[in-house]
Each structure stands twice: as structure tokens, then as C-alpha cells.
């Protein structure tokens, strides 16, 4: 590794460390905001790992998230909590592999719609199964605090960044970039396009499932309609695109302002939250194509043109 890489890694670790200090403020409100930001950062970044290079818009986040929540919800009584997180990862990964193998050969739009329906379908199968077995409500009663959840999410974020960084340097990352540019070319140079796509989809699915498993104790009561709420998938996409998917740090710079904006809107205009969110959404799409990363790249390009050292 080069010196610059070490610097980047060190800088990222430092940032993570600073972020980990937040719960020490003891301000429950700040911590709950922190949980939101950490959760969306992990989800959006892992989403972008797959969707960024491949340009496949996945709306399946809610499905993986829900599966993860249910892993915790179903087995918290019998399996120690720490063992549940890897189980959730495996469950999410396997599901992603199945879905990926079935649909990733299809062109983009079919994938979008199938992934959108996936959460709905799994929700139905889960409720059907619960109904068959006469399942009672799923309660997750633990003494987990918001701070604990926050730290777990930060740790996961660290892992996701590390994974993203490693993938970016690996053959797989290179292959995916070529696929994103032109899938036919990729196929001609001997890249197994389907397998590469599935591999990354599995990563992003597993991560989303772990997030669901971590968040479950926070919700106390897990019901299918909430665990598989389709809104989550859209929020993740919007935040990631607002930030920009071209760079690993892109989603983060989307998540932070969006979560804060969301917060301001829901705090200030409780009766028009949906309306104003929709409007701010439109503004983002029209004024920031390519997200903040796009803006940053354009600014850099302009400076380079003017001959200013970037």
C-alpha cells in the first residue's frame, strides 16, 4: 500500500473515533439523531457499493432490513444476541444471492421493479408463515440502549467502508466498473458479469440485514408492516443519490444533510411533512444531478480547466 492509502485509512479511523464520542454528551436527542445518521450511512453506503458501479437501482433494502429484524425478533430468546448478527448477515446474503441469480441477468428496469416487490412478497410470506403457526406478536425486550445501538452501527459502518475500500482495489471492483461502463465490453473481455454483480449484491444485502438485526431491539415490537416498510428502500436510494455514488464517501455526504433536513421539516411542519419532503426531493433532483459528488467533481474539473491546482 502506498503512503496516501495509509493516510486515508488513518483519517477515516480518526473520524470514526470522533463520531464514537457522541454518546458521551449524554443528550438522548443527539444520540437518537446519531442512530438515524449511522443507520442510513451504513445502508446507503452498502447500497452504493452495489448500485454505484452497476447502475442497477435496488429497492430491496427494506426486504433485507426486515429479514434481519426478524432474525433478531424470532431468536432473541434462544440465541445470544451477538450470534444473531452473523446469522442475519448470512440470511440477508443468501436471500440476495437467490434474488440476484434470478433477476440480475435481466435488464435494469426489471430488476428495479422486482426489488421493489421483494419486500412486499417476503412480508407476505412471513405473515403467512406466522399465521400458519399461530405465532404471537414478536417482542424484542432487551436492555439495549440507543448508545449501544449507535456504537454497533458505527462499527458496522467501519466494516462497510473497509470492505468498499478493499473492493475498489480488487479485481472485482475493476470488473464492476467495466460492467457499469459497458456490459457487452465486460463480457467480451471475459468478465463473468452475472457473478460479479451477484457478489456485490450479496454484500449489500447482508449489510442491510445486519442493520435490521441491530435496530430490532430499538423497536421493541416487530411487525411485518413496520419491518418491511417500503419507504426505507426509497429513503436509502434518495440519500445515496443525493450524496453521489461515484465515490465511497458520497452517500455519507448525502445522508447527513438529508437526515438533518428531514429532522428540521418534521419538527417544524408536522402537518406538511410529506408535502415538504416531496418538494425538497424535487429540488434535489433538479438542482443536484449526480449529487454532491457530481457537484464536487464538476467544481474540480472547472478549477482544473482554469489551471488552478486542485
Amino acid at each position, binding site marked *: 500500500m502506498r503512503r496516501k492509502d495509509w493516510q486515508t485509512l488513518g483519517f477515516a479511523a480518526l473520524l470514526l473515533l470522533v463520531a464514537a464520542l457522541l454518546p458521551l454528551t449524554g443528550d438522548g436527542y443527539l444520540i437518537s439523531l446519531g442512530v438515524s445518521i449511522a443507520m442510513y450511512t451504513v445502508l446507503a453506503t452498502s447500497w452504493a457499493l452495489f448500485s454505484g458501479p452497476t447502475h442497477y437501482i435496488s429497492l430491496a433494502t427494506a426486504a433485507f432490513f426486515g429479514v434481519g429484524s426478524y432474525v433478531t425478533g424470532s431468536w432473541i430468546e434462544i440465541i445470544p444476541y451477538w450470534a444473531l448478527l452473523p446469522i442475519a448477515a448470512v440470511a440477508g446474503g443468501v436471500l440476495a444471492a437467490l434474488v440476484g441469480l434470478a*433477476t440480475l441477468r435481466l435488464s435494469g428496469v426489471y430488476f*428495479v421493479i422486482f426489488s421493489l*416487490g421483494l419486500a412486499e*412478497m417476503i412480508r407476505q410470506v412471513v405473515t*403467512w408463515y406466522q399465521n400458519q403457526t399461530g405465532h404471537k406478536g414478536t417482542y424484542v425486550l432487551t436492555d439495549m440502549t440507543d448508545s449501544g445501538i449507535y456504537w454497533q452501527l458505527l462499527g458496522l459502518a467501519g466494516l462497510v467502508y473497509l470492505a468498499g475500500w478493499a473492493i475498489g482495489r480488487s479485481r472485482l471492483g475493476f470488473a464492476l466498473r467495466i460492467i457499469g461502463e459497458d456490459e457487452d465490453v465486460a463480457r467480451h473481455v471475459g468478465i463473468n458479469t452475472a457473478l460479479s454483480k451477484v457478489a456485490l449484491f450479496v454484500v449489500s444485502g447482508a449489510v442491510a440485514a445486519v442493520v435490521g438485526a441491530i435496530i430490532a431491539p430499538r423497536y421493541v415490537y416487530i411487525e411485518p408492516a413496520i419491518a418491511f416498510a417500503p419507504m426505507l428502500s426509497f429513503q436509502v436510494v434518495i440519500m445515496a443519490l443525493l450524496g453521489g455514488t461515484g465515490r465511497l464517501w458520497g452517500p455519507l455526504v448525502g445522508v447527513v444533510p438529508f437526515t438533518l433536513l428531514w429532522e428540521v421539516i418534521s419538527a417544524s411542519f408536522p402537518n406538511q411533512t410529506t*408535502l415538504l*419532503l416531496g418538494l425538497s426531493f424535487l429540488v434535489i433532483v433538479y438542482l443536484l444531478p449526480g449529487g454532491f459528488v457530481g457537484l464536487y467533481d464538476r467544481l474540480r474539473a472547472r478549477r482544473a480547466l482554469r489551471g488552478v491546482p486542485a
Partner: protein
Amino acid sequence: MDIIITGLFLGGTYALIAMGLNLQYGVARIMNLANGEMLVVGAFTAFALYSGAAVSPFLTIFIVAPVAYLLNWLIYRIMLRPLVTRAKSRGMLEQDAILTTFGLSFVMVGLMIWVFGGDYFSYSYLARPVVLFGDNYGLNRLSAFIGAVILCTALYIWLNHSRAGMAIRAVAVSPKSARLVGIDVPKLSARAFALGGAVTAVGGAVISTFLTLDASTGVLFTMKALIIVIMGGVGDVRGTIVAALVLGVGETLVASLIDPGLTLATAYALFILILLFRPQGLFGRKSA
């Protein structure tokens, strides 16, 4: 027999839900995630006019259609046209369209809650039994089915036998070649989008006679409509009709013979089966 008829009725409902989206997506190339909200707007209007002034929902559609047409035309011209111009590729347009129309669906839900409130709305209209082949069916569902048949036939004939309709189909097949033969693609795209919106709103007014809705239910219909359109093949009226009927009959079969708890799973299983064997949809063209 009653399973088939019930299934066909449900399929008719689905056709009403999906037909508008097919025009919008197939011709104007906009994957409209606010489609379900437009449907709810139509349903709201029918509800308001029926409970306020006792206007039959089947008359309401003559008000809903032109208003929705105009509204959707404006939406396309003001909001979506710039995206089409800006997009460098089909994929980019798709991405932008998804984001924009998703934002739009939020705006519409917000406006509806503001205007009507978040309450459920439902009314009873033609909830009388009719007997067909010895079984009872709801008159409102039968009327909706007839409405769907009329609407689909009219659209089909218009698209296949009128000048304007042929031009629209040409755009659906290939916007580039359509331009070469002197078709004003932007203008027609706007019209197709507006027409799609009008059809959706009319569908909403019709199905409000037997479904209970509230301001936030639109997304359910959007998802169903997307599945049907993709299953049938983008930009093909016949495909949408067939896919809607297949889905309606399939779901009813499963609900009646296996378990009503698995209808949605059936819908997605059908969806994926069809796409695995015919990735372009039932009636889609390979190139499209």
C-alpha cells in the same frame, strides 16, 4: 366457473390500474411512481362528488378525465420534459424519473392529506348482487369490469386505427425513427403521458365504488401497475390487458384453491417466471 369470473373481474380492475402507466412508461418513457397517487386523486374526486352531491362515479369520470389530462400534461411539460432533455441515456432518464416521480408522489400525498385529511373514505355504490351462471357477483365490480373492457377496447382501436394513435405507437417502438418520419416526439410524449394520467384517474374513480382507500394507499397500486406493465411488455396495450387478466385469474385461483395468504407471492412468482422465459414481457419486442 365462479373462480374464472371473479378472476376476470379482478383482472379488469388491474387493467384499469395499469393501463395508464403503460402509456406513460411505454410511450413517454417515464416510470411514474406517482401513478398510484393519481389513481387515488380520481377516487377521492368520485367520493367527494358522490357523498357531496350524489353524482354517480360513472358520471364523475367525464369531469375527472379532462382535468387529469390537463394536470398530467402540465406535470410532464413543467417537471419531466427538462429531465428528458437533460438525460444522456435511457438509464439516466429512468433514474431521474424514478426520483422525480417519487418526490411527486410525496407531494401529492401531502396535498391530499392537506385538502381531504388522512381519514379512510368509502361509500356504497351499486353494492348489489347480480347473478351470473348461478353465482352472485357485485354489481359495482361487474360495472368496473365493463368499464375496463370499454376503456381498453377504445384505447386499442384508437392506437391501432387512428393517425394520432399510430404515431404514438411509433414513438413507443422507437423515438429516434419516429422523429425521422416527421413525428413531433416531445409533443406526442406529453400527450401520451397526459392521456395515461387521465386513464389512471378514471380507473381510480371506477374502483372507488368497491375499494376503501385513504390518502396514503397509492403506492400499493403503483406496485401492482408496475408489475402488470412489465409482465405484459412495455408499450403494448394487449400485453397489459392479458397480464392483468392472467394476474387476476392466477390470484383468484390461488386464493380459492390454495390459500388467500399467498396471493401476492403468486403475483411475484408469476412475474419472475414470465420474465425468466420472456425477458421482454408477454407482448414486448426484443429491441424495445
